[in-house]
């Protein structure tokens, strides 16, 4: 995987006037992706986030002691998910290649 480099950018997690800005060190990669950004463990922990994948909600502590809430965008999620599947029509592996042992 070719990494072009990294860049530190101030990123704002915002929803309905509650916002929190953190500095994230992004690795910039050339890989085509249906997502623009993938937030991994480092910034996830830096933000102190709790994530419910069932309710698609993220909660994180704000600087003033409150709790910020971000809801996932289901529409975009499904679009991206479908797009990622579509682009690999031959992705289904023949049964004999999977192997049972």
């Amino acid at each position, binding site marked *: *995987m070719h*990494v*072009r*480099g*990294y*860049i530190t*950018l*101030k*990123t*704002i*997690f*915002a929803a309905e006037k509650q*916002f929190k800005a953190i500095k*994230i*060190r*992004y*690795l*910039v*990669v*050339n*890989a*085509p*992706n*249906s*997502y*623009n*950004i*993938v*937030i*991994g*463990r*480092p*910034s*996830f922990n830096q933000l102190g986030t709790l*994530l419910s*994948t069932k*309710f*698609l*909600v*993220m909660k994180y502590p704000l600087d003033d002691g409150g709790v910020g809430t*971000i*809801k*996932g*965008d*289901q*529409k*975009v*999620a*499904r*679009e*991206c*998910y*479908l*797009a*990622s*599947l*579509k*682009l*690999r029509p031959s*992705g289904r592996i023949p049964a004999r290649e999977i192997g049972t042992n």
Partner: protein
Amino acid sequence: MEEIISRAKCYIKGEESNAEKRVRDVKKKGSSGSERKNYDIPPSRDQGTFKRQPERDRQPRRYAPEHFTPLMMRLERILKEVYESKIIPEANPPRTHIMGSNKDAWCKYHRVRGHDTNDYIHLKREIKKLIQSGKLRGYPRGRHDENRRGTDEVRDNRRGEENKHTMNTISGGFAGGGESSASRKNYARQIMLIDEGVVPHDDDPMVITLQILNWNIKRVFIDTDSSADILTFEAFERICLSEEQLQLFQGTLSGFT
């Protein structure tokens, strides 16, 4: 109304006689050889106010409409963004107050009354040049399907998005509608009817919107299993950052498919 018609007729007559004269001139020139090169070109009305096009390009364009790639937004808005990003310097201040026949229209490029910014052919050419030289990106319409629909505002909202490619996490399996492609498509379509809120789902991924440098960036995937924060190069370029700002990374990254 009659006045307008009569004025228009006058104008047409003038043009015709000009054209005749030009034809005559060309003939004369052909027979007697070219003594003065620019003899047959009539003085232009907007001469001197700004940079003139090369003379040989000028004549045919008055009659044959030039082709321009349709742009994603109005010229006015592109101009504003071009000025903000300081790709080209602003046009020189005008010498006249009115350029053109429409007294109510205002041209932001010249800062004079008389014609509308959006109809202005020199500006179109300037922008065309910029696009061709690669200084201006993202404005030509019709490259991606998703850019084709919607109004300016919708398109602006979509600016932060990138086109769809492949996904670099594990996808497929039982989540997201099942095994057959029809059922998955159907599953993806169901959501289009719902405006807000979370509906019961088959393990949808967590996708949110973030803000970086005044850009709303959609399609941000929260992947708690990934050990790095990834920004795609496409998105990086799109938020108007240059490659020089990148710092060298000497490690490796694995796990992408």
